[in-house]
C-alpha cells in the first residue's frame, strides 16, 4: 500500500476525531434508528428478520453520505485542487478515502451489531468476523459511490438530493421491509441489478442462517464487482486535467 494512501487515510481519521459532533452522530444516529425499529415492530421475529438488513443499509447510507459530503468539501474548499497538483495519484486519493472511512464503517458496524444483539436481543447465528468482512465490502461500495456522485454535485444541497435518488430506492427494493420475491416482477428485475439487494441477502445468510462467506459467493461477487467498477469510475472522474 502506498504511503500516500496511509497519509490521506490518517488525515481523514484526524479530521473526524477533531470534529467530535460528527463523530458522535456517526455512532449515535444508527443506534437511534435501530431503537426506533426495535420498539416499533410488533413481533420479535420481524425484528430478527429486519435487523441484519438495517446493519447493511445503514453502512451504505452513512458511507455514501459522509464520503460524498467530504469529497464535495474537498473540492469546494480547494484542497482537492492542491492534492491534484501534488505527486499523489488519483487512486491514492480514492484509496485514502476508502481506508479512512472504512475504519469508521467497521467501528459503526461493531457498535451497531453489539447494540442489536445485546440491547435489542436480536437472534444471531453467524461469526462476527465474517459479518465485519462482509460489511467492509458494502462499505467499500458505499465510499466509492459517494466519491463518484460527489463529482456530479456542485454543492452539499445537491449531494443530499442524491440520497432519495440513489439510496432510498435501494432501501425499499433490497428486501429490508418485505421479501424481494413478493414484489411485482418488474421491480424484482430492478432489485436484482441493485447492489444493496445482494448486501441484504448476504448479511441475512450470515446472521440468520449461520452461513459462511464461502457460501455466499454470488453476493460477494456482485458487491465486489460493483465496488471495483465504482472505484474505477471514482478515480477516472478525478481527472488531473479536468479542472
Amino acid at each position, binding site marked *: 500500500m502506498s504511503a500516500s494512501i496511509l*497519509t490521506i487515510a490518517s488525515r481523514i481519521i484526524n479530521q473526524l476525531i477533531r470534529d467530535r459532533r460528527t463523530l458522535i452522530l456517526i455512532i449515535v444516529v444508527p443506534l437511534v434508528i435501530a431503537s426506533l425499529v426495535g420498539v416499533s415492530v410488533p413481533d420479535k421475529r420481524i425484528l430478527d428478520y429486519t435487523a441484519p438488513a438495517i446493519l447493511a443499509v445503514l453502512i451504505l447510507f452513512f458511507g455514501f453520505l459522509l464520503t460524498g459530503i467530504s469529497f464535495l468539501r474537498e473540492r469546494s474548499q480547494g484542497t482537492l*485542487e492542491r492534492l491534484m497538483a501534488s505527486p499523489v*495519484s488519483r487512486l491514492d486519493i480514492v484509496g485514502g478515502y476508502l481506508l479512512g472511512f472504512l475504519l469508521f464503517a467497521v467501528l459503526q458496524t461493531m457498535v451497531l451489531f453489539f447494540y442489536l444483539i445485546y440491547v435489542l436481543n436480536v437472534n444471531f447465528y453467524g461469526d462476527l468476523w465474517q459479518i465485519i468482512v462482509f460489511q467492509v465490502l458494502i462499505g467499500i461500495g458505499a465510499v466509492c459511490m459517494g466519491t463518484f456522485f460527489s463529482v456530479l454535485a456542485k454543492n452539499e444541497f445537491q449531494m443530499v438530493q442524491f440520497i432519495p435518488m440513489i439510496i432510498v430506492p435501494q432501501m425499499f427494493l433490497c428486501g429490508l421491509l418485505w421479501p424481494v420475491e413478493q414484489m411485482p416482477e418488474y421491480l424484482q428485475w430492478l432489485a436484482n441489478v441493485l447492489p444493496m439487494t445482494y448486501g441484504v441477502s448476504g448479511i441475512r445468510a450470515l446472521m440468520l442462517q449461520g452461513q459462511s462467506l464461502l457460501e455466499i459467493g454470488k453476493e460477494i461477487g456482485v458487491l465486489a464487482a460493483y465496488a471495483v467498477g465504482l472505484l474505477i469510475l471514482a478515480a477516472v472522474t478525478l481527472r488531473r486535467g479536468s479542472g
Partner: protein
Amino acid sequence: MPESSSGPAVEVNKLSFAYGRQQVLDEFSLEVPGGISFGLLGPNGAGKTTLIRLLVGLLKAKAGTILTLGRKPSPKIAHLIGYMPQLPSLYGELSVIQNVEFFARIYRLRDRKQRAQRVEKVIRLVDLWEDRNKSVMSLSGGMKQRASLACAIVHNPPLLFLDEPTVGLDPELRVTFWEYFSALTRQGATLIISSHTMDDAAHCDRLAFMRDGRVIALGSPDELRQAAGRAQATLEDAFLHFVRREEKKDVG
C-alpha cells in the same frame, strides 16, 4: 533545494486554452528565467489563474507547449513544484501543524526527523509557531494565507506558483509576505506570482502585463516604467500606457 534544470524555469509556447467557447489564452508565449520572482499582472479575467493552473498541470492545453523545469507538467515533477491556490485551501478542522505536516508527507518528506524540522521551520517562517495547534477554521484570513503559504513551501520546491497570494492581506502583512518571497528567491527558488495590484508588481524582478489572455508588455518594473515615456511614471501609468497601445492596435 531539490534538483532543477539549468534552463528557463518555465517556457510557454503558443499556448491556447478555452473554457467551452470562451477563449482564455490565445497563442500565449512566455519564458521565465530561474531564480527570480516573476509577476503576472493584469485585471480579473486576464487569464492569470488559468495560466497558473495550466502550468501546474491542473488543466490541459488545447494547443501549444509548456515546459516547467524543462519537462511537461505531470505528477512526475510535481514534487519540484509548490502551488498556493487563490483560496487558502486548507483542512479547517485540522490544526496549522497538522495541515503543514500532511502536505509535507504528501510531498514525500519521508524522514520523520527531517520532516519535523522542516515543518517547524516553515511554520516559524510564516510566524505561526505560537498558533500551530489552533484549528485552521479559528484563524483570521491573513493567518490562513500564511498557513497556506507554509503548506506550499514545506517541501522546499525550486519552482513556486502563487495565485494572488496577497489578496485580502493588510499592508503590514503584505510587506511580510514579500520578505518571505525575497528570501525564497535569494535561496535560488523561482516564484511565479499572479496579482492585480501594482503594489505587488513593484516587488517583482520581472513582470508580464496581461490582458485578454495575451502578454501586452514584458520587462523589469523599471523598464516598464521607462517605456511609459514619463519620468515619474508609476507601474499603473505603465500598465495603462500598454493597454491604450493595444487598443490602438486593435482599432487599427
